[in-house]
């Protein structure tokens, strides 16, 4: 839903104002903070990335944290100390993600402890995946092949998802967007079509990864979209920070997800 209104706002803004200019606005520099990006999916060990924030105008990549202690525990009492594999990326080995278990992440950096926890929500296997050729639809989509997969949303509680789409192994990240889905407007227990968010041509390999999210993680991604695409609050919501689920003032998200993948080649 939100996306559709963003389209509207974008079109409106473009149609009204056509000029922009990069300006040198004197921005202050805030205190440096720790950024945590943790992920554990079913049947795989955890991956945690640690970095620090930097000044707005900085043109180098953000500094990575390479000497932190990173520990994952689950609600069965298992403990996994992750090892640094370079460039701020830490990987675990003896804990792999299991549906419905709760995981706790602990990061110790410069003597400060940051923690987070998340339950790993279930995800259904997909029912099928198909593609079809379609003509251009106005300003919205080009002629080409469109891939759709079908999956059922589990009944009962509210479910949230994140889709990642690849074309020939390249991740589609256009317009600073995340492809988010919630079952709020969806019929339960029906096979729902979900379209890949890009157009493919003959010979392309189309791949997707579909993640189940907690409400907390879903909200995090929504806020991230809003943060990345804010217009200064004129038509969009007032600019706001992305509230994550890490304690002690660190930024970021510890995400536990069920994941399904599918791919095909357009012929």
């Amino acid at each position, binding site marked *: *839903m*939100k996306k559709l*209104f963003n389209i*509207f*706002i974008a079109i*409106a*803004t473009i*149609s*009204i104002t056509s*000029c*922009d*200019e990069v*300006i040198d*606005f004197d*921005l*202050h*520099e*805030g205190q440096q*903070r720790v950024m945590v990006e943790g992920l554990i999916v079913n049947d795989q060990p955890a991956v945690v990335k640690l970095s*620090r*924030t*930097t*000044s*707005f*105008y*900085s*043109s180098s*990549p*953000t500094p990575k944290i390479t000497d932190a202690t990173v520990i994952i525990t689950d609600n069965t009492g298992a403990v996994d100390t992750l090892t640094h594999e370079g460039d701020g990326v830490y990987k675990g080995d003896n804990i792999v993600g299991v549906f419905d278990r709760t995981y706790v992440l602990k990061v110790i950096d410069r003597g400060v402890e940051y923690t987070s926890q998340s339950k790993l929500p279930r995800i259904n296997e997909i029912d099928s995946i198909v593609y079809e050729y379609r003509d*251009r*639809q*106005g*300003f*919205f989509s080009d002629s080409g092949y469109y891939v*759709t997969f079908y999956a059922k949303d589990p009944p009962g509680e509210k479910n949230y998802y994140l889709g*990642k789409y690849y074309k020939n192994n390249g*991740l589609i*990240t256009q317009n*600073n967007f995340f492809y988010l889905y919630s079952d*709020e*407007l969806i*019929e339960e227990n029906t*096979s729902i*079509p979900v379209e890949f968010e890009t157009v493919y041509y003959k010979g392309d390999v189309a791949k997707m990864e579909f993640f189940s999210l907690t409400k907390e993680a879903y909200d995090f991604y*929504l*806020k*991230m979209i809003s*943060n990345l695409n804010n*217009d*200064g*609050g*004129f*038509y969009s*919501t*007032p*600019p706001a*920070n*992305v509230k994550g689920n890490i304690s002690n003032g660190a*930024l*970021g998200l510890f995400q536990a997800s069920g994941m399904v993948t599918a791919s095909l080649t357009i012929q």
Partner: protein
Amino acid sequence: MKKNYLLFLGLLLLIAQSAFPQEQKYTISGRVKDASNGEDLIGAIVNLSGTPYGASSNEYGFYSITVPPGKYILEANYLGYQKFEKEITVTANVTINIEMSEQVLEAQEVVITGERPDKNIQNTKIGVQEVDVKQIKKLPALFGEVDVIKNIQMLPGVQVAGEGNTGLFVRGGSTDQNLILLDEAPVYNASHLLGIFSVFNSEALKSAELYKGGIPAQHGGRLSSLLDIRTRDGNSKKFSGSGGIGTISSRLTLEGPIVKDKSSFIISGRRTYGDLFLKLSSDKDVRQTRLFFYDLNAKVNYTINDKNRIYLAGYFGRDVFGLGKFFNLNYGNATGTLRWNHVYNSKLFSNTTLIYSTFDYAQELEFSSFGFEYGTGLKEATIKQDYNYFLNSKNEIGFGISGTHRTYAPGIFSPTSATGLVEVALDKFRSLDFAAYISNKQKISNRFSVEYGLRYSLFSNVGKGDVFVYNGERLEENIIDTISYGSLENIKTYGGFEPRASARYLLNERSSIKASYNHMIQYIHLMANSTSPLPFNVWLPSTPHLQPQTSDQVSIGYFRNFLENKIETSVETYYKNMNNIPDFIDNAELLLNEHFETEVRTGRGWSYGLELFVKKNTGKTTGWISYTWSKTERKIPEINDGKVYYAGYDRRHNFNLVVSHDFNEKVNLSGNWVYGSGRPITLPIGKYEFGDYGNYVPVIYPERNYYRMQAYHRMDIAVTIKNKKKENRNWDSNWNFSIYNLYARKNPFTILTRDSQGLPKKKEVVKIYFPAPIPSITYNFNF
């Protein structure tokens, strides 16, 4: 409790009726009209020369003066009109209808007889600005679209949000705190094209008056201002027309008598035609794009006899935007007003009004994979009874009651193709309003006049509907129960007294000091999270979770005229405190949210300022200079960590200069220069990386509205050239050439941050602005 309040009001009415001893006096009453077209003149000063007796005509041109028997000279003055004079002998109640002729600009020098009106000194109005709707047609306009709202933005005490935006921020109030009335019907979304133009077609307008304070007890429901816009009644003497062909739109107005001097009509339309040119494009998608808006005002009135007159007025306007069959949206207002003026006797004037107003928004999306329709809206029906009782030469009493029913549709989402989407229809909200008021304009002495009134308003949020129960803070996860209410069942009632008062003390013939106090209550709230509201933002009533907003404003002013009232000046200061004003939590989700209250927090806002105004109304050179110093802040628990922050439209300094000069009968040159110090904005203090390759670079923000934009300033000019009028042809025309933002100042529409183009992970600050200068040509005609 409620009964006590009503009893109290009734008592007040009784006192007003009987408190003043009756002497042997007679009443002169009638209507003041324009001699050429029969339009009622609002606010004309009618007085008896050399006596303290006088009155001003009301919204329907009606006046009434009660005097001892005798010989008098009846005088009427109205700005831009020749003074009316008539000798009368009063021996009984008498009806005198006054017809006034417009001043004709002579070739040599403007000849004006009698004194200039000095009503700005004499009346008790403070914080009130009149807009001369004839004058604004000569002033420069963006794309040549003469816009009364844009002119109001150049008045003291009014702030502007961004370049070209029609939002009004009056004395620290937000855009939804303005009661905008079009022929007494509230207009819920007064803008076209996302706020670039207002819905008011200048051709149809008779008068526009902005009350920043000193709002009469007759009106209520919004905290910060009343904008009273009235349309013309239509020429009752002869058939005539006017119109214009502009850069982006065309206008046509037809008016004339249905029965001469008894009944007339006016119909006025405007439509933009930018999209018609898109049809010429070679690109199919561009050809299928629709982007236009239109306005239609229509009005008829019928004078049944001296004592009865009825008016029926309607407004319809829409914005339409479509991209082929895939994306369509349209939204607009419709209002209707049926009024019946009745003169019971020479002292008691009554007006009965039925009002209907609606705003709706509809959006459709239709792709092969999915489609849906989305809609929101609001409907209001009001019945109102107002009386003016011209008790005696010292007291003019107004009283009345009104009742309103509103239905609010906060959102309906219905899928149009079978994709497994489900329909979501948020429950409609309903509310009932009731208000009663009594007020009195009282001349205590020749020097001292007061106007005071009391309004009592009562508001009920009624069923059918659900109310959520929260355990602790209003968060979705804290909902522990839902209470359902049946149709028209009372969910929550709010009410309160709204005292209003203003006073004028004449220091001498040229100057006066005035003061006012206002208490206002606002029961409905616009769920708009952005600086410029969007058409899909919805209005909601006060509910058990969302209390009514209230404000108290005091203001003091000094008014002084120079050069025999040719130049009017004023200095006003105000302090306004607002309680329960809403703001929204970070990343508030306002679309299809069945528990809006989780996104809203309320708190205190305050504003204070100083406004200077110098105006020259007559002569070859007219115009005004205004300067405003003001400060507007808010403090709302749970927003900005509970710390005080500036409102998004807070500007410390505002300066406006508007000049119009008639070189001769044919050529007019006008221009304006506006300056506003920068408004607050939230921009980052840092950034970080996120995502698989660190390819998302979000930013870190400090407190809300931590930074300030650069100052805003702009100069516009316009030349109006009248074409030579051909003998024996009743066709008058002129050309208006206008340039907006003459020196091409790149004023920010907004400032935002984005990924640097080309350089990965680098960010940049970008200013979005209107291309300038924007020239436009308009051809105007009258016949």
